[in-house]
């Protein structure tokens, strides 16, 4: 599968734009603030069903316009598929595949997958546990769209339980206890399911990440990935009961998969606090590339690689390794400065304030 054409209407700073894409490496150059990342955002929108920068709809639509329209043509062997998304300033988005309306973003996600590398990936290592949980959850959905349901169900239970705890205002009545019993059960059921999926994923993911990391670092650091849950497995319901009084007092659910952590340790020390900046970047790249390999292997579909200005952050040896690891299928890169010497893009575009020039 690869992206062959992309149209944008009223998206971000593009009033009207059309680009041809090919297999191989496409390079997008341009100064800061001219709209390079917006193009990557448009491609990734189909795969995520939202902006990968988590931008709300209002900010995706060009000023004073009601809606943005994105259209992509995907080639799968020789079959053409057209994906279309109408992003409304207010109200629901409309999605189409081959001119036919589809109900959910799940349908689009089955057609196109992307792996994004960006400067903010460092937060996968440095940031809070939420960053790492999100990384696993997004990967789960890339691997199987049914996992979206597991996640949505869990989040719904969490929201219901938290609302109930807030309504209790620190005091408990028989009524509230009895209602909590019920939500505990649904929360534990959906939470256990999500945690199990995450743990299974981490197990299959480990060898993939280790493989890519070997190529980045020559030294034999022991890298460990551990799924940490602060409750005993299969006993989430008991854990909720133990924490109930705390939960009621604080008005929030203090235990469960939404508080779990994926601990990354290098030679026994937490990478978050002990690894150097360079090591952290390598680890972040390892997570992204490892996930990419796993999606490729399990779904048989290689995601399109989107590299958002990552070369400026890496030293030349790491740049070189990254380029060697780049898949042969399709990659789109943006850069403000010079490319490392080893990169030979097959196609080039230059953007100036929302208009696109093909430079080769």
């Amino acid at each position: 599968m690869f992206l062959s054409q992309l149209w944008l209407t009223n998206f971000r700073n593009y009033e009207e734009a059309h680009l041809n894409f090919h297999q191989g490496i496409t390079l997008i150059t341009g100064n800061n603030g001219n709209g390079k990342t917006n193009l990557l955002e448009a491609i990734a929108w189909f795969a995520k069903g939202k902006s990968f920068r988590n931008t709300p709809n209002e900010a995706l639509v060009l000023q004073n316009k009601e809606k943005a329209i994105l259209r992509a043509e995907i080639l799968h062997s020789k079959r053409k598929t057209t994906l279309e998304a109408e992003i409304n300033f207010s109200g629901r988005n409309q999605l189409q595949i081959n001119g036919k309306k589809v109900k959910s973003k799940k349908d689009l996600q089955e057609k196109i997958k992307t792996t994004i590398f960006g400067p903010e990936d460092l937060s996968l290592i440095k940031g809070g546990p939420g960053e790492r949980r999100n990384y696993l959850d997004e990967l789960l959905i890339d691997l199987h769209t049914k996992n979206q349901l597991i996640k949505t169900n869990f989040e719904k239970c969490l929201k219901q339980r938290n609302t109930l705890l807030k309504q209790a205002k620190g005091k408990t009545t028989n009524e509230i206890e009895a209602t909590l019993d019920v939500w505990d059960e649904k929360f534990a059921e959906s939470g256990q399911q999500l945690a199990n999926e995450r743990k299974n994923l981490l197990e299959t993911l480990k060898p993939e990440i280790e493989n890519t990391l070997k190529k980045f670092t020559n030294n034999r650091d022991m890298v460990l990935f551990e799924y940490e849950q602060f409750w005993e497995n299969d006993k989430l319901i008991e854990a909720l009961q133990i924490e109930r009084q705390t939960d009621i007092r604080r008005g929030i659910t203090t235990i469960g998969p939404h508080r779990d952590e994926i601990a990354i340790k290098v030679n026994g020390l937490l990478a978050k606090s002990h690894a150097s900046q360079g090591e952290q970047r390598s680890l972040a790249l390892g997570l992204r590339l490892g996930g990419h390999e796993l999606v490729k292997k399990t779904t048989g579909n290689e995601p399109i690689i989107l590299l958002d200005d990552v070369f400026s952050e890496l030293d030349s040896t790491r740049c070189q390794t990254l380029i060697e690891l780049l898949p042969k299928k399709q990659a789109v890169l943006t850069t403000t400065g010079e490319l490392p010497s080893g990169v030979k893009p097959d196609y080039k575009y230059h953007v100036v304030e929302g208009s696109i020039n093909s430079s080769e």
Partner: protein
Amino acid sequence: MYIDAVEEVIDALGRLPGIGPKSAQRITFHLMRLPVEDIELLTSAISLMKEKIRFCDSCFNISEQELCPICKDGQRDKGMLCVVEEPKDIIALEKTAEFRGKYHVLGGSISPIDGIGPEQLKVAELLRRIEPERIEEVIIAMNPNIEGEATAIYIARLLEPLGVKVTKIASGLPVGGDLEYADELTLGRALVGRHPVNEEYKNV
């Protein structure tokens, strides 16, 4: 855009479920062309309905009298009670002609986000019916979503000590549909809820 009198009708109609701004506009312009008698027929029918309709004292279905026609019907199987969220669910179940017992309308499902707890629902009223009406089985027919399932658990726990059999309607594939069109969740549940084929033709 329009004069106030027109705008007000469009606005009021647009608040109804299933009617968007375009439909509201179309209906308003249609109403404008209707003769006065037809308009009066419509408005008086609506206000009459509002005047006459109340909720059944026993099951909280919509009714014109203290008791709804189903509760008054002596032919109904008295030992069976089916618990639903809304009166419209009764209509759907009645169309099946499979159920001959009585109903109990809860008025929604437990959803803290929407500010609905057990005390906002007719749960206590349900419990009060079990003994005097000699109910033997309660069938829970909630919507198959998380809130519906949570409500089902809640009710089942309260009913258990009363020594009444509690069942839940099955979830699975729509009859006459294609397997391939079923979503993963429905199909998954249908798989979990499978049963021996032999039992099926014994029941027929």
